[in-house]
């Protein structure tokens, strides 16, 4: 390890406190048994319970009633901040093993022809991070210790209904209750050999609840299907608790130990998010044969204005294919973008948030049996961007990868 960057940390006072959880990417998790494999390009298909998320109108085209669940068996994310500490990289890791989707679809043709209903519980974002960095006995530094713990999730609980207006056209509506819960705790302790110390304990808790109302339509013509969904999200309540305990005996004028100074804050911010983005999703799917399908979605999220969580408008894309290698083994592949909604990091500015754009790839194999199927596969997200990890004007290049190994099962009845 090089002493230069360690001294730099100390000279900088403290590590930049930007360990916020991810409210800025909308495709961190792709959910739904088939949708996962298709990279989330599902608006023109959505004929299973995940239609609650992608396009409720597709439920009316379901061939059977079913119940399905999927889980991220292994989720791992690595973010590398290049040359952050001198010429050394700084790496953050996070992981999760949470259940991102559970849902069921019931066709109700006997009640009303062309009517279907569905429920779903889904995770739009879910992350656990435990970061621990420790440096000891270098130059005048006795110890630098920093830990970060993040638990973040955005979960939806939704109900949807869809009706086929004609053989080729359907409409659907889905109402979900969204629960946002993010807890961040960050502790830093710097001890100098000359008795100077700095300690900081920073914690935030973001909570929110809102209604997500999706209106969708799907139209089929020949071997093509088209889907359109609008999601209007309304916050019903939100809160942001920010706590800071900061203590130091550093005399900034002399650079040696002086009188103890401390800052203690506990702010309760009422409208940290202010609003949630409105999403417009348009998709097309092509079914040239029973063995193959191709789908493509464009997803636009509007900007949201907030002091704490400002998000720019973003347009993502997803495309996927499904091919039956044998009548029992479908192979699904997908490519999707997961662009950052934070502003680009610009030179000449300080305390800027990270900006990391991801491209994701999915590869899933299924095993279909009469009335049931299981699927398993891998999703990889590869990100590149810029950041200011340490307080000051320096900008770092960021490379990030996340891997998700997911399993799903569906039973039709």
């Amino acid at each position: 390890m090089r002493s230069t960057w360690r001294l730099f940390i100390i000279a900088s006072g403290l590590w930049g406190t930007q360990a916020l959880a991810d409210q800025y990417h909308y495709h961190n998790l792709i959910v739904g048994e088939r949708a996962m494999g298709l990279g989330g390009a599902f608006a023109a298909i959505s004929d299973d319970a995940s239609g609650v998320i992608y396009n409720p109108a597709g439920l009316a085209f379901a061939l059977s009633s079913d119940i399905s669940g999927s889980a991220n068996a292994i989720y791992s994310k690595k973010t590398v901040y290049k040359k952050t500490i001198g010429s050394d990289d700084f790496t953050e890791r996070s992981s999760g093993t949470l259940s991102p989707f559970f849902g069921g679809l019931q066709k109700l043709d006997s009640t009303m022809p062309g009517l279907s209903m569905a429920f779903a519980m889904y995770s739009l974002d879910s992350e656990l991070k435990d970061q621990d960095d420790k440096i000891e006995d270098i130059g005048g530094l006795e110890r630098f210790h920093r830990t970060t713990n993040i638990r973040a999730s955005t979960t939806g609980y939704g109900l949807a209904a869809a009706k086929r207006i004609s053989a080729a056209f359907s409409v659907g509506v889905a109402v979900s209750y969204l629960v946002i819960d993010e807890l961040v705790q960050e502790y830093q302790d710097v001890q100098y050999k000359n008795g100077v110390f700095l300690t900081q304990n920073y914690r935030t808790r973001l909570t929110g609840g809102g209604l997500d109302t999706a209106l969708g339509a799907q139209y089929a013509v020949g071997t093509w299907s088209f889907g359109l969904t609008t999601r209007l999200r309304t916050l019903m309540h939100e809160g942001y608790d920010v706590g800071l305990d900061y203590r130091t005996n550093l005399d900034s004028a002399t650079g040696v130990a002086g009188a103890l100074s401390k800052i203690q804050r506990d702010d309760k911010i009422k409208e940290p998010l202010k609003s949630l983005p409105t999403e417009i999703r348009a998709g097309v799917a092509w079914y040239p044969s029973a063995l193959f399908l191709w789908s493509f979605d464009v997803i636009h999220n509007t900007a949201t204005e907030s002091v704490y969580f400002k998000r720019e408008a973003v347009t993502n894309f997803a495309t996927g294919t499904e091919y039956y290698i044998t009548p029992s083994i479908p192979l699904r592949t997908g490519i999707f973008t997961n662009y950052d909604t934070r502003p680009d990091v610009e030179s000449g500015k300080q305390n800027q948030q990270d900006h990391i754009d991801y491209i994701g790839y999915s590869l899933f194999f299924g095993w279909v049996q009469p009335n049931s199927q299981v699927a398993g596969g891998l999703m990889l997200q590869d990100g590149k961007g810029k950041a200011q990890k340490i307080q000051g004007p320096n900008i770092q290049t960021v490379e990030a990868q996340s891997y998700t190994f997911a399993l799903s099962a569906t039973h039709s009845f």
Partner: protein
Amino acid sequence: MPMKRPGGCLHLLSLGLATMLLGSCSFGAKPNSEILEPNKVDVEQQKKIEEARAEMEIGRNMAGRLLKFYGAYPDEKLVRYVNEVGNFVAKYSDFPDRRYMFEVYNSETVNAFACPGGYILISLGAIKNASNEAELAHVLGHEIAHVGHRHMFNTLNKMSKDELDKQAAAGAQASELPEESKIRLRPEPEESTLGKSIAKYIGGSAAGLNLLQAAKAGMSVIMEKGLGAELEFEADQLGTRYAVGAGFHPKALINFLCRMETNRGRPKDYCLKETTTQVEAKTILDKTHPSVPTRVANIKTVLLAMKADEIIGAKGKKRFVTVKERINKNSGLAEKEKGKGSSDSDAKAKEKAKISTETDPEGKE
């Protein structure tokens, strides 16, 4: 010798195992180990048990699909009545110990389905077409003959795998999916040995047939292909024997079939003509059964053989009239709910009843 008391975990394990075993034992007609020790179980008997279970599963699946498609007619009293008549006739069949379950499905077309394992569905239209209990008994007797002699199950069992797959695919299409939805159909999955083993463990399936494929193929047979003229003639003859044995009027099935044709606009003497002229198949019944004149001619031979003219059978009109009134009343209520007004539907019901009486070749009781 004193026994050690097992620990808590072992307790839980044994409880779990006991629950699993209890679950598997309670599923269907597995041999009772107390009666038949495993090493003494007759292989043939075991095969029969497995076949019976397969028959039940296929029939249950088919009946479920049919009821899902048509919907069950929501009148418990009517269903109970049909079960009474059906099970009464079944007592006089070749298999009086078999269990039959009768259900009325919501369709105005005249038809009935015999699913393996004893699941018999009769349409509301068929009950409406009947003018007395004897006719209903004969129709149910026909279906009881199909089930008892395992016409459908044997047909499916004789099919090769390719044929089964073909019929299963046809069965899927027969479920009348709109063209716009058919593009979403994926390949019919192959049931693997492992998948079958899992299904067997979970569902207790024990037959050599791929049960789901068989059920789908059965749907094609029941909705499109039919069992073939020979088996239909056999069911007509046997059904007539059962119903007559139960004390019902011998010519009731002929009356029922002839009325059905007359109501479709065919001449009164159409069904009595011994013609082999092919007519356009407009209904599922047309597609899956021989023509009514040939069926009537066939029934006449059995009536002749049993000297039906000398038999005084009951028509059971009194109770049936009450049933019909109940159906008409329900139909009237349903029409009212639809906002079409009761006067029209009552008039239609009366008109239909009038037609029924007029076209009854037997006339009045």
